[in-house]
Structures are given as structure tokens and as C-alpha cells.
């Protein structure tokens, strides 16, 4: 495939916490406007890998990385790249819904404001909430606190907030793990809608979710010798779940793992 079809390319990526290597030798291409899911057992470094894509690992003082992640032909970790700009282009939704303790309106407007948005704020808020399939539920209470919403609504508010700054890629770190099945389904539907405009990378513990909601799947496992995560297999989701190439993958997705 052509280079242009990749939103992100990880090359020879190793991530360390202090002297401990959390993720090793990752070679991975994220396809544009597709949903890529990372699956794997706990502690295998899925979230660490995900956070590397928008330099959120920089916030953890002891972490450092080797290798490169290329975005539009540029290594995100080059010294002339500002992580603030990286995070503006590559947004993130977290495991636990974390709206700001502000009004619903301000939750969305704040990100736009700090990034220098100069258009019509009301329109942006409405558009973002509509894209996150939340508008109809909150349009009458925009001035209420974001914390007054239910868990699923809060997570969609966080997605709306991320969309509002117009990123190109959205990283989702187990976005449904704190939600009930109905809310989970709503988020999955939403991801499918968002896919038209955004490239989405999602970490999940839920294999059905990966099978249902993603186009590509990467399976990561933990090396039993040095406890570092490595990528076992990366393929189209259908392929992965119907005819896995690797015995480890098959064991994991059929539940015989460990």
C-alpha cells in the first residue's frame, strides 16, 4: 500500500519506564480513516503504545522511547516538534470519562478557545455535540455541569470535546470499560460514524468490541522472559478473528490463553 494511506507509522518502537522496557520492537501502520484496535492481556503495553502516538507518555517523567512514529512523513519525536501541536492534531479519549468540572458548553468551548478558535462558538459546540450523538440529550441543559451527566453521556461529551478541536486522529484508551453495554453500543455506533472523518485507534479488553467495531486489529502480548510487550500479529479484523496466523493469537481470541 502507498505511504499516503497510513495516518501513523511506528518504526522500531521501544518504550521504557526507567530501565524497564514496557514495549519492544513495534512495527505498525495505522490506516487512514479506519478503526484500528489494540487487544491483548493486561500489562502488555497496549495503553503505553497508544499514548506514544500523541506523546502523552511525555507527562510520565520516567518514560522515554527509542525508534520513531511518523505522522505525515515527520517523526513526532523530532526535537523541533512541539507536543502541544501533536496533541492538537491527535486527540485522545480516556478510559474513565473525565469531563472538566465546568458546564457542558464550556467543556467543549475550552479546548477550542485555548487553540485559538475564531469562528462561531455556539455553532461549534452544537456541531461537536451532534457529531458525538449527544446534542438531543443535552441541548436544553448546556449550562449544567458536565459531571451531572451519566457515565455514557460523559464519555460522549469527552469525545465531543476532542472532536471540537478538529483533530485528524482520535486515540481511545478503553473508552467503554467503565460503561454499561447500552452505552458501550452507542459509543461503538458513534465510532463508526466518526470513521468517515477521522482515523481512530482504540485500545480494548473486549474482544467482541474489537471484532465488531474495528477494521484492523493488532494483538499484543507480554514476553514472559523480560515482561516487555511485543506485537504478535497485525491484520484486518476479519482475518484475525477468522483465521489467525499465529498460534498465540488463536489461543487468546478463543479464550484458551494463559
Amino acid at each position, binding site marked *: 500500500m502507498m505511504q499516503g494511506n497510513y495516518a501513523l507509522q511506528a518504526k522500531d518502537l521501544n518504550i521504557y519506564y526507567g530501565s524497564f522496557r514496557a514495549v519492544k520492537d513495534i512495527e505498525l501502520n495505522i490506516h487512514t480513516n479506519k478503526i484500528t484496535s489494540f487487544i491483548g492481556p493486561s500489562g502488555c503495553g497496549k495503553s503505553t503504545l497508544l499514548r506514544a502516538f500523541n506523546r*502523552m507518555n511525555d507527562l510520565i*517523567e*520516567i518514560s522515554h522511547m527509542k525508534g520513531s512514529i511518523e505522522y505525515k512523513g515527520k517523526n513526532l519525536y523530532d526535537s523541533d516538534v512541539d507536543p502541544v501541536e501533536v*496533541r492538537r492534531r491527535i486527540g*485522545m479519549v*480516556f478510559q474513565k470519562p473525565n469531563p472538566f468540572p465546568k458546564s457542558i458548553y464550556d467543556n467543549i468551548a*475550552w*479546548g477550542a478557545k*485555548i487553540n485559538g478558535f475564531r469562528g462561531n462558538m455556539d455553532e461549534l459546540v452544537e456541531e461537536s455535540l451532534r457529531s458525538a450523538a449527544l446534542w438531543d440529550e443535552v441541548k436544553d441543559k448546556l449550562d449544567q455541569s458536565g459531571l451531572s451527566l451519566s457515565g455514557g453521556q460523559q464519555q460522549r461529551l469527552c469525545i465531543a470535546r476532542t472532536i471540537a478541536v478538529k483533530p485528524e486522529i482520535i486515540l481511545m484508551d478503553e473508552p467503554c470499560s467503565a460503561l454499561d453495554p447500552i452505552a458501550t453500543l452507542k459509543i461503538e455506533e458513534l465510532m463508526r460514524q466518526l470513521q468517515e472523518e477521522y482515523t481512530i485507534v482504540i485500545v480494548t479488553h473486549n474482544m467482541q468490541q474489537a471484532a465488531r467495531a474495528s477494521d484492523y486489529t493488532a494483538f499484543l502480548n507480554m514476553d514472559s522472559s523480560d515482561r516487555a510487550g511485543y506485537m504478535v500479529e497485525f491484520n484486518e479484523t476479519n482475518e484475525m478473528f477468522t483465521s489467525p496466523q499465529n498460534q498465540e493469537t488463536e489461543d487468546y481470541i478463543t479464550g484458551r490463553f494463559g
Partner: protein
Amino acid sequence: MADQLNYPEGEALSDQIARRHTRGKIWRSSFLVALIIAILVLVSLVYNVVNQAFGLVAVENAIDPAVLVSQTGADPATVSLDELTKDDYVEMLQANISTGLGRRLERDQRFYEDRLVFDNQAAWDAACAAAEPAAGCLLPARDTDNVYQLVIERVVEQRVIETWFLRDSLLRGDEIRAEFLAENPNAEIEFRSWLTADFLTRPQSSRPELAGVRTAIFGSLWVVLVTLLFSFPVGVGAAIYLEEYASKQNIVNRIIQTNINNLAGVPSIIYGMLGLAIFVRVLGAVSSGYLFDYASIENRQNSLINSMESNFGITIIIEDGDVTSAIEGPNAAFDLSVTEAQLLVDEFTTLSWRNFDIDEVDASVIVARGLRIPVSVETDDNGTERLVPKDDSVMTAANFSLLSREMANAAKAIDNGRTVISAGLTLGLLILPIIIINAQEAVRAVPLSMRQASMGLGATQWQTIWNHVLPQALPGILTGTILAMSRAIGETAPLVVVGASTFIAFDPNGPFSKFTVMPIQIYQWTSRPQAEFRNIAAAAIIVLLILLLSLNATAVLLRNRYANK
């Protein structure tokens, strides 16, 4: 099944559970005892203070009001002192107080619109034509009630001769009355609360009945204001740096952190020594205000000279910046009432607010700058107490001028900064570690997910701190700050070292004023020999406690207000 046999069953199980419950109950009761002990201590503290702040007092008048009434020609049996006319009261004042005092009272507020009682017309006109005219030139004349109060204060001069605790007053009040009045038929016994509105609004005085805590309250508020203005921004700033920016791995940062924690436990007297060395001595020119308003010293000297003239009839002449001093006028002989001497000393204290310490004016000696001026109290024909020199050869006009020159020179000397700003900064240093530690706690309590959410949207670190971390940490920071402020208000030892004055008769009016604070005032009063000072000390303790409680209430309100959002 083998596992189950290892656990007690049946009776053994209920015994074992009962033993566990018993152990829990024993702990629970011992915690209850601890709580009861704490409550008992608090109750006895409050009891002790209240016991002294209220109670019976025996008062005696310098002049019996009945005598005053009979002097006007009225019958004391049918007319009481408060039923007389204004003219009668003015006559009583004329008969019983010195001309100097009367003149001062008249300059404060005149007695009649159309005539002068104590002053002469020429001096009055001069006082009104001055750049700062006397207050009396602008105010309407005193009304009857006002003059009556003056008579009570200056002529009747009620004095407390004996006080009793609240407990005794309540339990055996009648007994006390009967016993005491049998021995002192002239005295009257009344129930008195030493904590009154007047007590809050009056300045210090060497007479306990007239003393108040106003200057100490103002002093405390000024000092705490300076303390907060210094330690809040510095403390919160340091906390943010340590929590948000500084690397936890860096050995220097870890040493700093450990030292801040240790500084919070350093005895406060050591901070006092530090404040004395740095703020009072090294930075004396700054903390005394010398660098900012030297010129005003001359204004103060001039106002002293004016007040000496108007109050004591003494003229001071300054030639080439030097006080040469001459005593002229009707009061050339050194003849001051106790109140007047006090006023004189107050004037000098005001003037020489930078440096001058008058130890005390009491009835036997004026001590100042190594000059001991022996005086004695004599009661003149009218029953007014006056300070008169014990020995004419010692207390000459020249000697007196020496005293005033010493005082005026002291005002010029700029060699120390025992001022509000030194005290405020010293207390600021003292509570800085507490504020830093509390603010760090509060900043650390802001969930990491907030920072991630903000950074994930493309916010810079500073935007994250300012918009999310600080607002969410604010209730905790405020709580810690106000608790630290409570500590600063109650601190005594470092301020003794830094040089809080024990006697200040004027309100501190800025960071470069001399000052006293509530705890020092209380300490000073409790160490006085007269019993009444302990009564007002108890009243001052109640004021201090109320001040502290209201600050803590503010802390709770602020915390709730921000926590609800």
C-alpha cells in the same frame, strides 16, 4: 472438608466472634475517653477565661457625685448628677481639671459656639488658621451629654478598687457585697462585663478601666495582612513549582522538599531571631520606612512642637535642624496631671515611632533613653492627681528640654525597623512551609485525569495549571492558608524578638508603623501587678478566640463554596 475443621464451629465460633467484638469495644471506649479529656480541657479553658472576664467589681469615685451636685447649689438628695445643666458641668470641669487639659479638650471640640472656656481667643484663632486646623474649629459645640461624660471621666474619675471572679460573684454575691461595703462605705459594688463595645474600640491605657484592644486588633490585622500578602503568593508558587514542574528524580529538588518539611517544625522563636537579623537589622532602612518617607519625619516633629505648644504651653524652637527648646508660657513650671504626662509620652511615641521606646510612665518616674526623671504624684486642692518633680534641682526646665531633644533626635535616628512589615514578613517565613505543604497536598489531590484531559486537547502545561489544577486545588489551598493564618495570629514569641511594642497608644496605620498584637497585649496585661489587668486580659483572650473562630469559619465557608462547584 479438612480445611473447615481448622475453623472454630458452634460455640467456639460464637466465643471467638464475641472476643473480637470485645476487643473492638475496648478500643472504642478508650477513644471516647480521649475525646472526653479533650473536651474537658477545652471547657476548663473557656471556664477559666470567662470566670475572669465577668464578675463583681467595687468602684470608688475620686469625687463623690453628691458633693459635685451640692457644689452647684442643688440638693443631692433629690437631684442626681445626670440631671444638671450643661453650664453646671462646664463649671465642674473648670474647677477640677488643669487649664492645659481643658484647652486640649476644647480644641478637640469646643464647649460653646459663642465663647471659649479654657483657651484664649488669640491662640484659638491661630490654631484655626493653621494648615491643619484643630478639630474643634470645624465641629459643632459639645452637647450636654458629651460634657456630662467628660465630667464622669475627668472629674468623678471612677476607679475600680476590688474585683471578684464570676464564680464567686454568682455563688456568694450577697455575702461579698455585705462584707466589702462594711469595710468601704464609700465604694459601690456592681456587676461588670470587662468585655464591652468600648473595650473593643478604646486604645491602650495605663488604667485598666480605660484600656481597650483597638490598637492590638489593628496591629494583628496589619501584621496578618502583610504576612498573607507575602506568604500566600510565594507559598502557592513554590508548591506549584514543586508539584508540577520540578523533577521528582532530581536530587536538589528532593533535598529542597525534605527541608521544607523540616522547616515546618522549626520552633517559632528561631524565626524570630531570623526576622530580627534580616528584617530589623540588615534591612532596617527598608523596614523602618526610611527609604520611602524620610520627609515626613519633619512633619511629625512639627506636629509634636505644635501639640506641645497647644497642650502644655511649652514652646520648642528648632534652629538649624536642632531642637534647642525653650519653655515659655503659663505652664512653664513642670506641672502635669497623670493624664497629661501620658499624653505627652504618647505624642513622643507617635513621633518617634521608628526607634523610641518609652519604657513606662508610672507614678514615680519617667524613664526614657537613659534619662530618669523622678516625679511624684501629688493631689492638689481640687483632688486632681499631678505628676510633679520630686526635686526641683533635678527636674529643671533644662532637664525637660534635654528629654524632648533626646526624643526628637530619636525620631531622626534610623537604625531599626521594629515595624509591622518586619513582623509580617517574619510570620510570613514562619507559615511559609505550612502553606507550601498544604498547597502541595491540594495540588497533588487534583486527579491526573484532569491534567491528561487538558493536555490531550492541546493545552500547554501552564494553561492546564491555570485553568484546571489551580481552580480545583483552590479550596484545599485556601483551607491550608487560613489555618496557617490562624497560627500567625496567635504567635507571640517571634514578635517579642522582632520587637512588638508593649505600649502603643495609637493605631498602626501602615506597614511602617510600630505595632502591638493581641497575644502580646494579653501577655503584657497578665504580667501586670494590678488584678484588673488580668480581667481585661481575659476579655482580650475572648476577643482573640472569637477572631480565630471567625477565621476558621471563613475557611469552612470558602471550602464549601468552592467544593460545591
